């Protein structure tokens, strides 16, 4: 089903016409596949800036099931839904609608997502994303949340006594750090 270079437009069901249209607009070279670079042209945060390279690579990586480094229209449909879900979450926590999530808003977001972080750690996350202004844009927020989810899962698997600590050897540590990060 649609492995060639031509866009695969299903007759019924499948991808909505709007998403297909958007796909065609983003697929600048009309190859039938979207690269991270083309995606960058399509995804914009509240400040009118393109999503970061990191965020775009993450998105492609998550939805590129056949490991071609690109995504087709069906994979794009899933990505589109995913990004919109995150946008909704982001807007929920961007209470002052600044287009950024500040430290307090991030703290609330993490807490409501089920994480129990100390204020020091929230501060660390904010500083890491934006050392200057201490706030997080939607693409940074997505990258942050996805990374936290991945690392938390890796930690949980190793926390055999379920007491919030792990005993980990160097190679395993490297393995986790390299595989889970973007």
């Amino acid at each position, binding site marked *: 089903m649609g492995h060639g270079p031509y866009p695969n437009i299903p007759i019924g069901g499948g991808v909505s016409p709007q998403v297909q249209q958007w796909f065609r607009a983003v697929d600048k070279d009309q190859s039938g596949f979207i690269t991270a670079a083309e995606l960058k042209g399509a995804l914009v945060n509240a400040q009118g800036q393109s999503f970061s*390279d990191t965020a775009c690579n993450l998105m492609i990586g998550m939805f590129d099931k056949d490991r071609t*480094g690109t995504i087709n229209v069906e994979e794009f449909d899933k990505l589109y839904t995913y990004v919109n879900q995150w946008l909704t979450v982001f807007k929920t926590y961007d209470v002052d609608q600044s287009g950024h999530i500040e430290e307090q808003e991030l703290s609330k977001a993490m807490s409501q997502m089920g994480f129990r*972080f*100390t204020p020091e*750690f929230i501060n*660390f*996350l904010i500083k*890491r994303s934006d050392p200057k202004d201490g706030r997080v844009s939607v693409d940074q927020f997505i990258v942050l949340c996805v*990374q*936290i989810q991945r*690392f*938390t899962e890796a*930690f949980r698997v190793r*926390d055999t006594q379920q007491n*919030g*600590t*792990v*005993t*980990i*050897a*160097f*190679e395993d*540590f*490297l*393995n*986790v*750090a*390299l*595989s*889970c*990060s973007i």
Partner: protein
Amino acid sequence: MAFQSPMPSRDFLMDIFRRVDKDRSGYISADELQQALSNGTWNPFNPETVRLMIGMFDKQSRGVISFEDFGALWKYVSEWQNCFRSFDRDNSGNIDRQELKNALTAFGYRLSDEVVGIMVQKFDRFGRGTILFDDFIQCCVTLYTLTSAFRQYDTDQDGVITIHYEQFLKMVFGLKV
């Protein structure tokens, strides 16, 4: 490290600095640095690596390199070039899995093929199973950062640490700082 480069003369450095500082601002920006560096292909030098180097040598945290910082940066790049060339045994202009393993062994690591494989996968930007010069720098610096973070907790130096959740997160997140 056996890849030392002698520090060149001030005139020599000034000459290079001027050529890199295309807009004659008196500072080298990330873009200018990226254009000046080559990874041996026609693809632009890895922007992550450029940011990394600016971060390391930009003493005033302005996001640019002044002439004062440039000498140290130049030396750093030269030493990496020497290092890379010495491990690119077949002179292919890139480092494959085995050459990377050799390099890491020479740096003092004892890593399994599996982890070396993961490193190639992560730093090989063009999906060819090999690592270019800019990605090699990125790979080694990342490894160094992770090793340092680990070592801080490994007080008895037995290669195993016990850490809490947030400590763990900080260590693995430390990569992007």
